[in-house]
């Protein structure tokens, strides 16, 4: 068999089919304000924002090895920036959310410089301490309601769009757009040269370093970009809620524990994992939420069992069985004939 009998390809038939189905699903989701009820629209919007958070956490923990349990720092920061910039800065909410992203990146630089000194699990708790510092600091700002929080003034809410349903549709589209932006950004990033470096670091840090990859800089870049996007997601979350308080904005359970459970249940270190995990999480929540605290115990238990019995998550199980990759990142060698057949 000669070399010319083979060719190298990135895509596969499954990936092409997934791309077509994804595009159809996206069109249907864009049209949701016309076919979904108010409550459903809110739910899908929330799902989109959780998907964005999960994809970002997955990029950090699954690829860059930065296991953070303090992402609520940036969710809350973004939320508070939305409130501060619209109330005191007179910006409209969409501008405020974009600037919240820029400020999130700016604030993450000194934070990273400090907590990157901690290794492994201690890095994780260090990020939590940072989130506590953020929470306590914002609780000191009496102009934003101090410890009890504040609501978004109606004038600002009205400036978003005319009429309640138009506003809700806009908030939904922003959430959907954010989810698509994050998943696409993660996908394109991982396919780029920097993404290759990141994957190399994930697989073997020592070997990656010996190939000339600057590990610190690559992780730093991932941390800053993730923080910026997480802050923007935070802004959108509180644009939906219209009310913010330190305890809600910097909740470790809501913005980190659930996000980690989503990623692990879906499959860490894959782009598909967070998508599946988000769907599973919301399916569980919608069916079991009446159980209250028992539901959260079940969720914790499911996460533990998945971690112990199937550490690559649901997508890991599917992939090892069917050799599927819906977001093609790797290269495959194939027979030329196979392509024609």
């Amino acid at each position: 068999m000669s070399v010319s009998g083979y060719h190298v390809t990135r895509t596969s038939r499954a990936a092409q089919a997934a791309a077509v189905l994804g595009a159809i699903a996206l069109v249907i989701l864009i049209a949701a304000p016309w076919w979904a009820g108010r409550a459903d629209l809110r739910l899908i919007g929330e799902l989109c924002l959780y998907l964005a958070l999960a994809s970002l956490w997955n990029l950090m923990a699954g690829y860059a090895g930065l296991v953070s349990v303090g992402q609520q720092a940036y969710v809350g920061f973004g939320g508070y920036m939305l409130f501060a910039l619209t109330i005191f800065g007179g910006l409209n909410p969409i501008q405020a959310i974009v600037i919240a992203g820029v400020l999130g990146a700016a604030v993450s630089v000194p934070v990273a410089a400090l907590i990157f000194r901690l290794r492994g699990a201690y890095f994780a708790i260090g990020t939590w301490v940072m989130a506590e510092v953020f929470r306590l600091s914002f609780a000191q700002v009496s102009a934003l309601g101090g410890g009890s929080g504040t609501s978004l003034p109606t004038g600002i809410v009205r400036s978003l769009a005319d009429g309640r349903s138009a506003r809700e549709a806009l908030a939904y589209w922003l959430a959907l757009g954010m989810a698509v932006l994050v998943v696409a950004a993660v996908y394109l990033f991982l396919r780029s040269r920097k993404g290759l470096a990141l994957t190399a670091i994930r697989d073997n840090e020592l070997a990656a370093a010996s190939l000339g990859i600057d590990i610190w800089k690559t992780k730093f870049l991932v941390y800053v970009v993730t923080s910026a996007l997480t802050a923007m997601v935070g802004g959108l979350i509180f644009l939906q809620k219209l009310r913010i308080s330190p305890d809600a904005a910097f909740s470790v359970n809501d913005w980190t524990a659930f996000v980690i459970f989503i990623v692990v249940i879906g499959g860490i270190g894959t782009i598909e994992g967070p998508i599946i995990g988000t769907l599973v999480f919301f399916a569980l929540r919608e069916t079991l939420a009446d159980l209250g605290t028992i539901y959260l115990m079940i969720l914790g238990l499911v996460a533990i069992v998945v971690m112990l019995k199937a550490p690559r998550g649901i997508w890991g199980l599917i992939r090892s069985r069917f050799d599927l990759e819906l977001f093609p990142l790797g290269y495959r060698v194939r027979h030329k004939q196979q392509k024609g057949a």
Partner: protein
Amino acid sequence: MDWVNAIVQGTLLGGLYALFAAGLSLIFGVMRLVNIAHGDLIVLAAYLGLTTTVALGIHPLVALLVVIPAMAGIGYVLQRAVLNQTLGDDILPPLLVTFGLSVIIQNALLEGFSADPQKMDAGALETASFGLGGLSLGVLPVLTFAVAVMVIAGLQWVFYHTALGRAFRATSDNQDIAQLMGLNKAHVFGLAMALSLAVVAIAGIFLGIRTSFDPSIGGGRLVFGFEAVIIGGLGNLWGTLAGGVILGVAQTVGAKIDPGWQLLAGHLVFLLILAVRPNGLFPRVDG
């Protein structure tokens, strides 16, 4: 005098933080495990203490006789049944599994005891105080600090003067060789976690006598313990006590400046020390 008072009270508060931290430091030293559920286990111990005092009508300090063995037992079973499976090069499994445990414990306590703050009744001990050189010291804080010193000294003694401590140090240095020398590392790790949760039991009881508690406060206690460990330097038990004292003093002095600054001041001192001495003030010298 107010400032001296703040520093002395902060030092005594540091004893409680050292109790939070000692168990965390111990299991990290032996098996490199960071237990996210540590704070929730402290709260669990407080609730166990509450249940015991109410059910048997005994003083909280007497309840230690029940709570310490109970928590140690929970620790051993937890380690053997669950946590041992998570240990390895990857830090994610232990982190995630203990995170899951944290959520489970929190919500189980919420289910069983509701979100209302609870407190243990220790009678006269809660308010007893004595004067010392113009300062008024509470008997309970002084007792807590003394117990913290005894616990640290006890752990130090176990580590360096007993067969169990030798087993801990051996598995910490090299798990495989320790195994070859006839140590069962699954059992050794189980004992380490049992010892860690025995200390957690003491921490939980003193927490529950000192302040009111509810199921949601575990995360905060974990963060204090963690800060004390890092300030003092990883793997140094006396350093952990010093770390707890520094954190406690930072908090009381911060509260003296502005009551809203109590917790923030503690965190800021932690970050400052992290910036200038990333290995903590008294790191253990490896070699």
